[in-house]
């Protein structure tokens, strides 16, 4: 009984919920659960992920409001299946979130199907405690090796635009073999532009995309925050 109440108290005061805003994403990252869509169509893997995507829906704005009201620290829009840029109510939500300007909104994004004007509008709607965290694993020429389908150049432009408009911008960089040599350049870039660079030790390696031994997490994902 006490444990249950302590759980609720801790989650309300310290927790930040991980919110799936839809089941839509345009990327084809090999270790994403969506990659099962590449399995044979008569396999269980394919059927399960297809069902999961089909039963998903856009987060109703009313539910988003309930979540933001409950969690004192704010909310994190971070999908297992989706990217927040595809949520049709993102702009109305950002507008609503201004009624809670002290709550943090963390928007984790890696997809790139919008244009720079869209980001301008999104950033202008973002209050001082909104953070945009971009998943770019390497520099412009390498990130799409894991983030298949990503227009990394647009996302770099978006990060820079965000900084110009005074928005908090984070760069989440999963370290793979192919981008290990670019970390120093990434630090310089982040430092120059006031971007918070977070290096990620992840389990997302595969036979074709390897993770350097020293960048493998002990167990679950590890993030080295603000490396610059």
């Amino acid at each position, binding site marked *: 009984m006490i444990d249950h109440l302590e759980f*609720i108290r801790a*989650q309300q005061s310290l927790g930040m919920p991980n919110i799936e805003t839809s089941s839509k994403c345009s990327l084809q990252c090999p270790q994403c*659960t969506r990659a099962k869509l590449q399995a044979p169509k008569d396999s269980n893997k394919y059927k399960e992920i297809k069902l999961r995507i089909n039963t998903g*829906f856009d987060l109703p704005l009313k539910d988003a409001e*309930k979540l933001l009201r409950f969690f004192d620290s704010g909310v994190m829009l971070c999908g297992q299946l989706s990217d927040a840029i595809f949520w049709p109510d993102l702009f109305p939500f950002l507008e609503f979130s201004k009624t809670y300007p002290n709550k943090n909104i963390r928007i984790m994004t890696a997809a790139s199907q919008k244009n720079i004007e869209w980001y301008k509008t999104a950033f202008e709607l973002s209050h001082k405690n909104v953070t945009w965290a971009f998943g770019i694993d390497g520099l412009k020429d390498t990130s799409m090796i894991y983030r298949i389908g990503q227009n990394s150049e647009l996302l770099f432009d978006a990060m820079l635009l965000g900084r110009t408009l005074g928005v908090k911008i984070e760069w989440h960089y999963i370290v793979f073999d192919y981008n290990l040599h670019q970390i120093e350049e990434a630090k310089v870039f982040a430092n120059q532009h006031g971007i918070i660079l977070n290096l990620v030790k992840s389990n997302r390696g595969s036979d074709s995309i390897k993770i350097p031994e020293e960048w493998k997490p002990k167990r679950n994902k590890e993030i080295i925050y603000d490396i610059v």
Partner: protein
Amino acid sequence: MTNYIRPECMPYYYDESGKQQYNARLSQGIAYTSDGYLLPCCWCDATSTKKDFVELGFYDEGLKLSNNKSVEDILYTNVWKKFINIIMHDSVNAPRCCREKCGIIDD
């Protein structure tokens, strides 16, 4: 076999001797799924572990967020109470993802 669970969604846990120990931080927040339900954390929101949470009642229609006035209404239900009791005191019967992600196996 998992000796005990050190849940990253809880501020503390009980070690093998039953002594309460504190987590350095609450690293896992509750998850809201693409079909409108709340789960203890995003690691629980996987196809491979869904069956466990269906059996525990997390996917009962009445626990859908849109069917409730607030997040509290869901978290105070017996489904969540029972889940917390399992991960804190009955690790053998905890969902697979809780054992895999937060389970401690002492040699």
